[in-house]
């Protein structure tokens, strides 16, 4: 239940009503005051003061002053007249309610309208600002364009002038050359200096005003040109300079940004060449050089030369494990097996070597001959003379001038014929 504040006092003039409302210790702010055209309410819970005014007032201009435990209202009357009392006398409850509601509604509407109005003005301000900036920028752009256009026109004019100069210059030159022609022909015909002078002078006179300056130039240029032609040195003695280029593996042009990638690729290639099949765990125990198939091959060769055939075979075995694409390894191992009389192994290895020695090129002729011979020998020792002969004949085909092969082939033929004869 609100506590009604009734100890208000009021005065009035023709146009305004002054109402003083003491607050019993309560603090008031603007939010506590509600005022509409004919209704005034102050609500500071739990206190309540309301008044349905005698006549409508102008609530937008009316003021309320809060201070000293007191609210002082200055209400401007809509119609200047003296009020009989502050509030309406016959305060019918329903009427009061009605009035109150109206007041609230009106206040709400007003608030809405105010916000709308504010929004509109804000938008208009924004638009205005935007247009202003656009204008400024446009002006700036135009200014720059104008400057550029002026430059362009100036420059075009200059160019035209220069071009016309060139044209005239060309005309003068063509007239000049004609006159030069005359000059040259006359002395050639008559070869008399006086005549030459004679032809010179009338020409000069006629064209004195216009061509004087260029004329002088022209004669200078003829003479200087003749002199120049005489002074031109003979063509240079032909010579060659040998050039070395900074080495580069790739055929493409050098780019700094690609250098790192190229280096990586080259490194990878080198690695791939060196280590093939190196995922065997035993290889970790070996020294760096022992992982190199070429080094192992050399080692094997040395051991073969010294007669250590088993050692050589071991060396070749390891080399093959590292790189099974080198034909020479198989070739040499075949030779070892022959010496060790492992004939079947010798045949195998020679065959593998021949496989790897394709395509047959002059480069690997010697190797192929050796391979055939070794296989042939192995066959013969196994008494498979026909196969052996085949190999010898192949070897002979590659190297027909080798007498030893011929002799051996002949021997085998004899043997075959001998066995067929006997059997």
């Amino acid at each position, binding site marked *: 239940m609100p506590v009604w504040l009734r100890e208000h006092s009021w005065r009035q003039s023709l146009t305004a009503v002054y109402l003083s409302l003491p607050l019993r210790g309560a603090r008031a702010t603007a939010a506590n005051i509600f005022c509409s055209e004919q209704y005034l309410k102050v609500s500071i819970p739990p206190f309540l003061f309301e008044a349905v005014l005698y006549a409508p007032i102008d609530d937008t201009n009316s003021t309320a002053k809060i201070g000293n435990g007191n609210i002082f209202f200055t209400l401007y009357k809509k119609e200047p007249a003296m009020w009989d009392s502050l509030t309406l006398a016959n305060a019918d409850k329903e009427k009061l309610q009605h009035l109150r509601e109206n007041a609230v509604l009106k206040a709400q509407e007003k608030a809405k309208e105010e916000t709308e109005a504010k929004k509109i003005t804000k938008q208009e301000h924004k638009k205005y600002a935007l247009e202003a900036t656009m204008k400024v920028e446009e002006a700036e752009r135009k200014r720059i364009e104008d400057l550029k256009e002026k430059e362009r026109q100036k420059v075009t004019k200059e160019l035209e002038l220069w071009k016309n100069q060139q044209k005239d210059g060309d005309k003068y030159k063509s007239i000049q050359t004609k006159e030069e022609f005359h000059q040259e022909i006359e002395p050639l015909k008559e070869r008399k200096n006086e005549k030459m002078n004679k032809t010179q002078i009338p020409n000069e006179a006629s064209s004195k005003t216009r061509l004087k300056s260029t004329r002088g130039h022209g004669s200078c240029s003829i003479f200087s040109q003749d002199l120049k032609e005489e002074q031109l040195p*003979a063509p*240079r003695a032909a010579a060659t300079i040998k050039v070395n280029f900074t080495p580069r593996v790739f055929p493409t*042009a050098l780019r*700094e940004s690609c*250098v790192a990638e190229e280096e990586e690729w080259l490194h990878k290639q080198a690695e791939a060449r060196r280590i093939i099949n190196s995922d065997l765990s035993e290889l970790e125990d070996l020294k760096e050089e022992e992982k190199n198939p070429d080094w192992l091959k050399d080692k094997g060769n040395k051991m073969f030369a010294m007669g250590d055939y088993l050692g050589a075979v071991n060396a070749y075995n390891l080399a093959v494990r590292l790189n099974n694409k080198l034909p020479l390894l198989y070739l040499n191992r075949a030779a070892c097996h022959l010496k060790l009389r492992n004939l079947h192994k010798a045949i195998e290895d020679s065959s593998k070597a021949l496989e790897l020695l394709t395509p047959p090129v002059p480069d690997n002729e010697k190797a192929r001959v050796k391979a055939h011979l070794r296989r042939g020998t192995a066959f013969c020792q196994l008494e498979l003379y026909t196969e052996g002969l085949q190999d010898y004949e192949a070897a002979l085909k590659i190297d027909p001038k080798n007498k030893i092969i011929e002799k051996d082939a002949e021997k085998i033929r004899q043997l075959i014929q001998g066995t067929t004869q006997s059997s």
Partner: protein
Amino acid sequence: MSAVLGPERPQMVSHVQQALSYTVFDCKWVPRSARLMCLGSAARGTGVIQLYELHGARLEMLREIKKPKPIKCGTFGATSLQQRYLATGDFDGNLNIWNLEAPEIPVYSVKGHKEIINSIDGVGGLGIGEGAPEIVTGSRDGTVKVWDPRQNDTPVANMEPVQGESKRDCWTVAFGNAYNQEERVVCAGYDNGDIKLFDLKTMSLRWETNIKNGVCSVEFDRKDINMNKLVATSLEGKFHVFDMRTQHPTKGFASVSEKAQKSTIWQVRHLPQNRDIFMTSGGSGSLHLWKYEYPAQRSKKDSEGSEMGVAGSLSLLQNVTLSTQPISSLDWSPDKKGLCVCGAFDQTVRVLIVTKLNKI
């Protein structure tokens, strides 16, 4: 790097733009005229030479000459001002010199190289420089050959790889140091980043270096003086300016380098009227105008007492982007300061005017 301020900077004004129906590889001004030549390759693999004249705001084609092989490069450098013959190198390795009045039969012709002639330069003509007129060509076959139009069939100098050495493409050549009748040098740039300087008087290699990127273009600031500066441009947006006045016995020539942009710098051309200003054209369709400033002292003594050069500094005066395709060729007019033509791979040739060069 200092910058010239706002309104005083040279402006690059685009004057004329002409669309072509072929790929243009080289464009050159005809000396003493407002005419220019465009050289290139038509779609069906034949060569085209077109002669244009500047008329107001457009280019008018005066003549079109068709040749069986596409043409890569050309120069007027070795002819006299009266004759104005054009020397061209084509995709087949042929060097031809044409009289443009009668272009059916070349004045001089030789199959100089086994592969495309990438670059050509001439010296001794046009009243510039002294000595015999000569033409140098650099080709993909790795050789650089110097020709004298008075001697048929054989070059007067041949810079070829040592026997058995794998060849590198020569991408660019330039003459220089032609200040009297005997002296002359040829500078060649290769795709592996080598720059070599050959002295034609002593027929020997005078200097070489490697700039770590393929060399697209080399040019001396002037052909007809004691060699002063050499600009070499390369892939990856870099170019180097070498001070050629002082050669150190081991370190060679001093240089300053600049990275202008991310793409290849296709060409460098010095302004004929001011040898410290040059323009570079790039793979992104842009042109940059540079100025070189000399240092306080151009040479100093090193710890052993030998002279070594001091490189100066570069400043960017202006840049403009004209196209999305590389601008592969560039030429300043020797007659009008600031007038230049450039040809790009978007089949357009553009004439530009660079203003305010007098104030630099």
